[in-house]
């Protein structure tokens, strides 16, 4: 019962802070609101039996990436030029963005809501017919971390190694690009 309430709370928080991320004039407040979104998301992960993911979310995302963003925003003092012209695109741009977003939302909703009300033709409906609660079983067997770590290191070993390579490339790239060139 308490879980349902928490779920709704986190969901609303995530959506509202998401909106504020986009609408805030000052980039710093946008970053902070994004952090709030990440926290509410990790809450949702917990409710969805993804405890390790929730933890990693908080540590990696909120902790590392958002700090990096904040660091960059603060360092380059990007917020001050708001006065020049509105950050939002022209009327045509806004209109286009709005229609696109609404259509996207409608399509996804159509797919998702296809579950019950419309007789379940939705994409999601069939997949539900699968195993009752695979995550629950894995949790008992290996605990929150083990449940995820297991498949990570046997089925997904190659992608795992590739990801590490990706990270290496990103680091080298970031250094090369951001290096201050002597004039």
């Amino acid at each position, binding site marked *: 019962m308490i879980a349902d309430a928490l779920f709704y709370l986190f969901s609303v928080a995530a959506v509202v802070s998401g909106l504020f991320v986009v609408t805030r004039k000052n980039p710093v407040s946008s970053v902070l609101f994004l952090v709030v979104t990440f926290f509410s998301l990790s809450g949702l992960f917990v409710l969805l039996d993804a405890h390790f993911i929730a933890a990693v979310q908080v540590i990696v995302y909120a902790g590392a990436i958002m700090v990096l963003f904040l660091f960059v925003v603060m360092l380059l003092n990007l917020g001050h030029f708001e006065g020049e012209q509105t950050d939002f*695109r022209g009327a045509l*741009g806004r209109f*286009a*963005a709005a229609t*696109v977003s609404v*259509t*996207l939302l409608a*399509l*996804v909703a*159509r*797919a998702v809501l296809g579950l019950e009300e419309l007789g379940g033709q939705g*994409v999601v409906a069939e997949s539900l017919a699968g195993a009752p609660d695979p995550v629950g079983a894995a949790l008992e067997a290996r605990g929150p971390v083990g449940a995820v770590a297991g498949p990570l290191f046997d089925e997904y070993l190659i992608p795992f190694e590739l990801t590490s390579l990706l990270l290496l490339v990103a680091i080298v790239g970031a250094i090369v690009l951001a290096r201050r060139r002597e004039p």
Partner: protein
Amino acid sequence: MEMIPALGSALAGLLQEAAHGAAGAAGQGAAHGAGQAAGDHGGSFTPILPGLILLIPLIGAAVNGLGAFLWRDRRLVPSWVGPLAVGGAFAVVLANFLRMLETGAAGPAVVTLWSWLSVGGLEVGVDLLFDRLSMVMMLVVTGVSTVIHVYSAGYMRDDPGISRFFAYLNLFVFFMLVLVMGGNFPVTFVGWEGVGLCSYLLIGFWYENAEYSSAGKKAFIVNRIGDFGFLVAMFLLFAMFGTLDYVPIIESAADELAYGGITVTAVTLLLLLACTGKSAQIPLYTWLPDAMAGPTPVSALIHAATMVTAGVYLVARSGVLFAMAPMSQAAVATVGAGTALFAATIALKQYDIKKVLAYSTISQLGYMFLAVGVGAYTAGIFHLTTHAFFKALLFLGAGAVIHSVEHAFHEQGHHGDPNDMRSHGGLMSVMPVTGTTMWAATLAIAGVFPFAGFFSKDEIIWYAGSYGYPILWGVSLVAAVLTAAYMARLMFMTFHGENRTDEAAGQGASSALHEAPAVMTVPLVILAVLSVVGGWIQIPEALPLPHVSWLHDWLHPAVEPALAVAEEHGVEAAHAAPLGGGEAVWAGVSLVLAVGGIVAGAAWVRSKEILVPERAADDRGLARVLNRKWYVDELYERVFVGPLLALSRACWRVVDDRIIDGAVNGLGYAGRALGWVGSRLQSGRIGTYVLVFTLGVLAVLGGLVL
């Protein structure tokens, strides 16, 4: 003179063989002529050296033509070769005429020089036709030409282009002979357009003057409108008869065609269109007055005596066809009478002496068309012959006047128009020979008793009346009076009264006036004699004079088929003029009218004082309309030439540039436009790319979900 025929006969012999060789396959050749004894009486006629008649003028033209390039302006050769070439031709024609006279042969003798076109069913040879009609025409053409060539030697003496002039004149005589001697329609057509070409070259002889060149151009184009009619008539004839030769057509016309049928009427109307073009009748006469821009001998030869009579000859030649189409005959007669009256009215108020004579020619040609229109072919040819004499004389006389007035103006350095009669006056004392000879011609053209005009014009008026055309008969009488009037006006303005040359060009000018040299006056005298004697070859028996109908009997065989058709279909002379009275009575009436006309004309001229062009007040009212030629030129300009030019420009600018090229270039621009649209997408702004990217996603998602 002898040297040329000897040389000629050798060449002719050669030509004969060439003709045989070339036409061997077709089996034509002189034999064709011999076998063809169509005429009812008199045996077949074997022409003497037929090719030579054409060859000599052609050689003359070639020699003079070369002269124009080689010895350019020296006068000796052209002034001898020119007249001699035509004289030679006249000699050969005379020889043939004498042979035809003594053998009494009448039958059309066709000589084929070589096969011109033989394609499928069409067989057209270069045929020369010798019969009574073409003989008369040849005599008139070569005779008058010889006289005029001699005159031109004097007239063009100090003109640098004399070689070129005689080249064109000889070429003209060549083409006129081709026209007259042609044995089938295409060969006649070659002559027809050939004379058109020479008239174009000769009108625009002094090409340095823009108006003269334009006058030449106008003559050629208007003639071409007539030639269009001739062409289509030929196609119709070929469609009807399967051949274009005169002899078979004339023979089979009566039975093969329906009397008054559509096709024969169409052919004859088209031929009429051709004749109005060439003989300057309404509506295609506007080129003749402008053609006065050419040297005066040209006006005399081409625009008075020979070329303009081609139309009358063609109608006479295809008389059978016209006889089969009464509607067309009526049209010819009406056009003739109408033109006679219309042109006479304009001539009354013209100040340029040559313009008066030009309109007089148009008027007299109207008479000839009236004659052949009513079916009196012999009368038409008779008037044609006499008219050739006195009109040529009038033009040559006018030329002499202009020559001396120009000389006077030149002395004073005055740049007035020597043709303008208002600066002439009292020239009889200075130029007696020219004066008297022109008086002879004036009396002849007016139709005063002993002179040629009296007989020929009177006969036309009589036939018009007796063949049942009362209105045209009346019109011709009125026109006769007007003719006498304007001719008298011309004579009294030019030769009588006090001289105005000093007034026009300054003191001492009149002293420079002089009588024309012998080489010009001799031809005048010859023509004057002919103007008097010419009429006596055809004296109606109604008159209290010895009855002579030589020309009528001479032409009868050639005209007989047409008359036969006319009789067959109930057309006969009523032997009484519309208002009653015999031929003699009306001859008297027309004589009185002629003399009255002259007196009236003289009185009219003397009545008011004639002012020199510079001070002359502008005419008003009817006089102005007549002087401006009833504004017909302006009408044609606004109705035909203007719109045609506008249409041409529209076709070029709009249809070609805008529509067709527009479409073609449009394709090119369409390609570029598509390219531009594509480039708008590559705007370089990330926002656009993301937007398009998202649209792509939506499309895929939509495809999946919907």
